[in-house]
């Protein structure tokens, strides 16, 4: 694990959508799908991103422009440097015996499940986005089931609606999901109802990334080190899941 930020050179950038870019850099560390790294822009800030591509000594992060820091990241050009440390956290557990699974990504949550999808043969990928231009990785995963809120492409409706239909038809042994917490919560409920195992990756505000500052709490679980991926059993003991989160200043807010 890299403890202090290590500067790496961005050697390629892909524009995934108007608001999402993927940055590639050299990375020789360990990595399990679902883990994240802290990305540092000196004198600016440092925030968490999942590794969304990994291939040999190259890794990538896929970044949605959301606020100040991600806007700054989007100005970075090939050859610029960023600092990285990590990887941190507990990733997704792979299914046993290549059992059938379904992987659900909502919005930029696709970044978190992308490497997981790369590693599975017998899986269905569902991607949800608000509208067609926001759909990600359509060349990377050719067989995705796509949903848009506005019906501009694919299934009209939420990923949860589609997942409900598909779980009726297939015998999924496990559901993986990353995306807005309301979506995750509904998937968790669905899985409980249908007695399917599930693992979801949760987002909370991250500062240290290694379990000391207490910023990323969700019901006594530290997202950064006990998570970000939790299974159904753990989620069942986390009443704050889907309900409340802690802001940067430590205030508890509802979803």
């Amino acid at each position: 694990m890299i403890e202090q930020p290590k500067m790496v050179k961005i050697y390629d950038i892909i524009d995934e959508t108007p608001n999402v870019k993927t940055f590639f850099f050299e990375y020789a560390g360990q990595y399990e799908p679902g883990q994240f790294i802290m990305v540092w822009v000196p004198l600016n800030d440092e925030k968490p991103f999942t590794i969304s591509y990994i291939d040999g000594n190259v890794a990538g992060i896929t970044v949605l422009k959301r606020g100040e820091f991600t806007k700054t990241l989007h100005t970075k050009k090939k050859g610029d440097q960023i600092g990285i440390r990590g990887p941190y956290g507990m990733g997704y557990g792979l299914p046993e015996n290549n059992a059938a699974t379904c992987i659900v990504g909502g919005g930029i949550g696709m970044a978190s499940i992308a490497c997981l999808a790369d590693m599975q043969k017998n899986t269905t990928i569902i991607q949800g986005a608000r509208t067609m231009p926001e759909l990600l990785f359509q060349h990377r995963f050719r067989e995705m089931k796509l949903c848009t809120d506005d019906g501009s492409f694919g299934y009209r409706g939420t990923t949860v609606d589609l997942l409900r239909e598909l779980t009726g038809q297939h015998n999924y042994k496990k559901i993986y999901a990353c995306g807005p917490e309301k979506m995750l919560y509904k998937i968790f409920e669905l899985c409980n109802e249908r007695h399917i195992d599930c693992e979801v990756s949760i987002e909370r505000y991250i500062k240290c990334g290694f379990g000391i500052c207490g910023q990323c709490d969700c019901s006594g679980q530290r997202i950064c080190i006990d998570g970000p991926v939790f299974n159904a059993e753990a989620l069942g003991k986390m009443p704050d899941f889907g309900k409340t989160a802690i802001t940067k200043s430590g205030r508890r807010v509802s979803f």
Partner: protein
Amino acid sequence: MTEVTLSINLCSMRLSNPTVLASGILGTTKTLLKRVAESGAGAVTIKSVSKDSREGHHNPTVITYEAGMLNAVGYSNPGVEAARIEYSNLNEIGVPVIASIIGTCTDDFIEVAEGLSASGFSAIEIPLSCPHTPGFGLLSGQGTPKATYEITYAVRRKTNVPIFVKISPNVPEITSIAKAAEDAGANGITAVNSMGPGMVINIESKKPVLGFKVGGVTGDALRPIAVRCVYDVYQAVKIPIIGVGGISTGRHAIEMMMAGASAVGIGTGVYTRGINVFSKVCAEMKQWMIENGYNTINELVGVAHD
């Protein structure tokens, strides 16, 4: 063989063991306090609370290095009103909970102390010693005997729960500050806060790593300094000391207690040995006591002075 016990009485608080979660580590929510209590801590301290909410410094706010850790979180906290709601029904935690209150002026301290007074905190800790947050602690002159006396005295008049004043290892006159706190009515001293500040520069980018550029140094780097501070303070005051700084093993805890601490705070150890550092330290202390013929942990307090 008689039973070995780690339990202590600390200013009317009963602790099943002398390990205390230090302020600013995992103390952001009630649920994390509970988790730490379940991980074996004898008492827990909340992250410091100010009158108004604060976002703190930019990230990185905490980094590790070969000999410890640097932090400049910048006192992010939701402010006293939100904190009052977060930290309610504290008896559910199962161990004594210590409030940590901060302010930029004496009135702030009073307002925060009063705001939290109905929450069931077992004690109040007043850190006058943060080395990296403008407006607070050392950066606002609170680390002098005079300011220590004033702030402690003001809070003393508003509360009956035990008060611990948390002091800095960076001041030349550490014993006069401890004495000022005692004179003003503090029931205990917490020694020490993080030292420095220090700086780590990333040489490839040529920039300081911490968002605030500098931050307090904790962990192994701090331990010998903290042990000396506790040793000095023990000779200067009669009130008990919570010794904090670089403790991550039972041997470290015993060393700190021999220097004069009645209890030990643990912060960076949560990183180096995991959240169960509290039960690990306790098990190691017990083992050592058995091997060395001690029955009660009190017997160790201050013995390095004999």
